[in-house]
């Protein structure tokens, strides 16, 4: 039996059935046993009912994306089976709740290894607690594919120990019952089996949202204010636990407008500050984003995108806030937008966001998305001592001699020293009105032009400063892929697959998405005139910005069904346009 090196298990069932918690546990168990893991979850927008899905990819190598489809499908109920039936491929495995659940018939799908596991029945009849159904399933899965049996037990002990040994035992029993069923009643006909990996030191497992919070801590955030919203709330949840430990403050504000107002006040006071939200909140923040741009107050705003517009698809995947982030707010407002590709990026681009905000005294937006926010993956632990922290250019009392301090002094770089309240001689009025270098309101045409030029011009050096664009060249490539955000990982995998098939393809991955890194993009387009831009939105938002700012005529590949791309989808498109 060949051992799989890359396995994708999808678990589907009703929201609230414990799918998330059991999925988390097997993920963690696998990571403990030295495997790389990456998860993908979708929830219904309702609290109860509706189809929820938890997918885990296990590998011995770095995992780039959710992957294409799944190798193993585990259905807790009929809805899960119905939802996924058309996606079950030959050679894959189907585990399903039978008999005793709501799936009425035994499944026999040609070419598919079908394993009935009476999860509900075992839970209800043998363990007399329906809630242990998911543990029964985990037991079977762990047994069938040799995934983290020992760590699973450890984790149960650790997690439920607090609730009493009784609870631990129930879970052990469920796990054993599932494993036993698999051993005794199922004939394994599939080829999937994961070797244990080498347990790694220096690995952590964390979600994209938590990683943003961690990045903020590493960057030195001291103030955070937000209003809950799916799928961004976990950034606040993470920081509400940890921020007070570094003597920082966090509040839940009355709305998103108040959050950003709080953050602007705190940053004016000299404290690194941040908020996190999703689309509806980002819409509400537009006026104050313009204000922070005008005041030149550093602020960091994480936007964990979801399906829009309006309430839209609150729990689904989309990359459709780029227009708003880059071009929103009335008037001409300068700002910076970054977009992370994966969980690790969520850490380092967030520290980068703070550094840019401080360096350029500008609002910096981080565009993550729902799948990435909820994705957990095994990543290398960051080393706090190695994180570069940049501080804003601060006014030095007395440095100017007798010259009065000018908050918005016109300098060559466009960056002016900022004073903080408490500093003698640094007094000024920060304002959203157009202002003179001194900060006093001034409406003269000359001043207006030079201040506008200052606010935009200071970002001219940004592309070199941030270096968040990666180019993957290939001689003779027919097509150059340009991907952003969490589509990058998927595109990387597609590029790898394409090359494996002999298709020549290059790629560029800009993580600074506004202002666009034009030097890198233009150089790329010169080498690969035919560019392909896959993105999860209707309007082709990055492709539009590329057309706007470069001479590229990219081929847009837009999907907007609420699901991310799979590597295969992009692969097929690469092949199609390479012809």
């Amino acid at each position, binding site marked *: 039996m060949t051992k799989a090196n890359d396995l994708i298990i999808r678990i589907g069932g009703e929201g609230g059935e414990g799918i998330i918690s059991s999925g988390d546990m097997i993920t963690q168990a696998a990571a403990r046993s030295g495997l790389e893991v990456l998860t993908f979850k979708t929830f219904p927008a309702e609290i109860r009912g509706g189809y929820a899905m938890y997918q885990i990819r296990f590998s011995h190598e770095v995992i780039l994306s959710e992957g294409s489809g799944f190798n193993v499908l585990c259905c807790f109920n009929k809805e899960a089976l119905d939802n996924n039936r058309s996606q079950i491929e030959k050679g894959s495995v189907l585990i399903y709740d039978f008999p005793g659940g709501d799936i009425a018939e035994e499944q026999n799908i040609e070419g598919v290894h079908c394993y009935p596991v009476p999860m509900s029945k075992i839970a209800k009849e043998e363990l007399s607690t329906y809630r242990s159904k998911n543990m029964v399933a985990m037991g079977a899965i762990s047994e069938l594919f040799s995934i983290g049996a020992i760590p699973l037990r450890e984790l149960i002990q650790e997690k439920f120990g607090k609730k009493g040994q009784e609870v631990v035992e129930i879970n052990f029993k469920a796990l054993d019952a599932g494993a036993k069923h698999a051993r005794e009643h199922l004939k394994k006909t599939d080829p999937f089996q994961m070797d244990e990996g080498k347990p790694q030191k220096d690995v*952590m497992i964390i979600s994209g949202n938590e990683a943003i919070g961690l990045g903020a801590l590493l960057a030195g955030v001291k103030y955070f204010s937000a209003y809950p919203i799916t799928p961004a709330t976990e950034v606040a949840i993470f920081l509400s636990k940890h921020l007070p430990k570094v003597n920082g403050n966090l509040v839940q*504000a009355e709305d998103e407008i108040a959050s950003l107002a709080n953050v*602007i006040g705190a940053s004016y006071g000299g404290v690194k500050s941040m908020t996190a939200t999703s689309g509806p909140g980002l819409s509400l923040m537009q006026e104050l984003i313009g204000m922070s741009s005008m005041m030149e107050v550093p602020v960091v705003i994480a936007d964990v995108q979801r399906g829009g517009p309006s309430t839209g698809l609150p729990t689904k995947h989309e990359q459709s806030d780029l227009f708003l982030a880059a071009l929103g707010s009335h008037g001409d407002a300068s700002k910076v937008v970054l977009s992370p590709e994966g969980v690790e990026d969520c850490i380092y681009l967030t520290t980068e966001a703070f550094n840019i905000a401080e360096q350029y005294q500008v609002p910096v937006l981080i565009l993550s998305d729902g799948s990435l926010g909820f994705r957990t993956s095994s990543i290398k632990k960051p080393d706090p001592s190695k994180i570069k922290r940049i501080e804003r250019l601060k006014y030095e009392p007395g440095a100017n001699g007798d010259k009065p301090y000018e908050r918005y002094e016109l300098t060559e770089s466009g960056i002016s020293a900022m004073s903080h309240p408490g500093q003698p001689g640094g007094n000024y009025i920060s*304002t959203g009105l157009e202002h003179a270098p001194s900060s*006093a309101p001034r409406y003269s045409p000359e001043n207006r032009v030079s201040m506008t030029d200052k606010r935009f011009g200071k970002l001219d050096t940004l592309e070199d400063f941030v270096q968040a664009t990666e180019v993957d060249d290939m001689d003779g490539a027919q097509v150059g892929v340009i991907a952003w955000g969490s589509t990058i990982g998927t595109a990387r995998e597609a590029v790898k697959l394409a090359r494996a098939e002999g298709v020549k393809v290059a790629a560029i991955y800009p993580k600074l998405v506004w202002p666009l890194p034009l030097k890198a993009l233009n150089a790329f387009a010169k080498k690969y005139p035919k560019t392909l831009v896959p993105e999860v939105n209707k309007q082709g938002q990055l492709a539009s910005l590329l057309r706007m700012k470069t001479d590229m005529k990219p081929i847009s590949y837009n999907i907007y069904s609420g699901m991310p791309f799979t590597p295969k989808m992009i692969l097929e498109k690469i092949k199609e346009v390479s012809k």
Partner: protein
Amino acid sequence: MTTATEPMKSKDYKSTVPPTWCPGCGDFGVLNAVLKAFADKTMSIDDTVLVSGIGCSSRFPYFVKTYGMHTAHGRVLPVAAGLKMSRPDLNVIAFGGDGDGFSIGGGHVPHVVRKNTDLTYILMDNSIYGLTKGQVSPTSQVGMVTTTTPYGAPDNPVNPLAFCLTYGATYVAQAYSSKSKQVQELVTGAMEHKGFAFVNIISPCPTFNKINTFDSYKESLEEVPADHDTSDLNAALKIALRAKEGKTPIGLLYKVERPTLVERLTEIRQKAKGDDNFDLNKVIDQYIP
């Protein structure tokens, strides 16, 4: 630059920017009294930040030598609160108009108040939109004719005092722009108060409000009774509701102590054993599988 230790006169707090208010605007009186209160308390110009929204009254910070922020319409309180939370060492004083505070900004007031945010909030109430040239404001009377209510305003006015009392403010006062001494005293009291202090200052707009004029207030002003118990919420509310009878109570309505936001955030940091040099590896290690 003068620091807190060298006593300054009221005029020393004036910036070089001449006020942009109309001659006769009530806001001049407020400015003068506030500057006196600053001088009285020898406030440090470096450790004081005046934060405002948008409106005629919100131009206030420009005319004073301290630090300041002139923010967006209605956002003065959350901006000021964010600043105070992160820099509790500063004196943060919020300024604004009736529209700024109780129309577009009205959603922030209950929350900043219930948290007992450590701020002084000075509202210049002229019952009109001054800067936009004379529209109905949330404190305008029913039936008032303004540019947007040519047939008379259809809405009952808000009662800023009663609102703040109900929200849980710990210091609530009303003053009248021309009664400079009282303005000064109440503002001083507010700045000395621990927690959220609200001073509503009736500050007529002779340019656009021809109803609530200096003259009209002569009749409606009414001192808070000398024997009023400022710790009695019900009594304070009753005084606040005198507005319904066309009266304008002035004086200190309410003053009590309860934990402030800064105190409560401090408690949280203490619970978390907050430490400036906290080793973040301790957080990271929690996420080892």
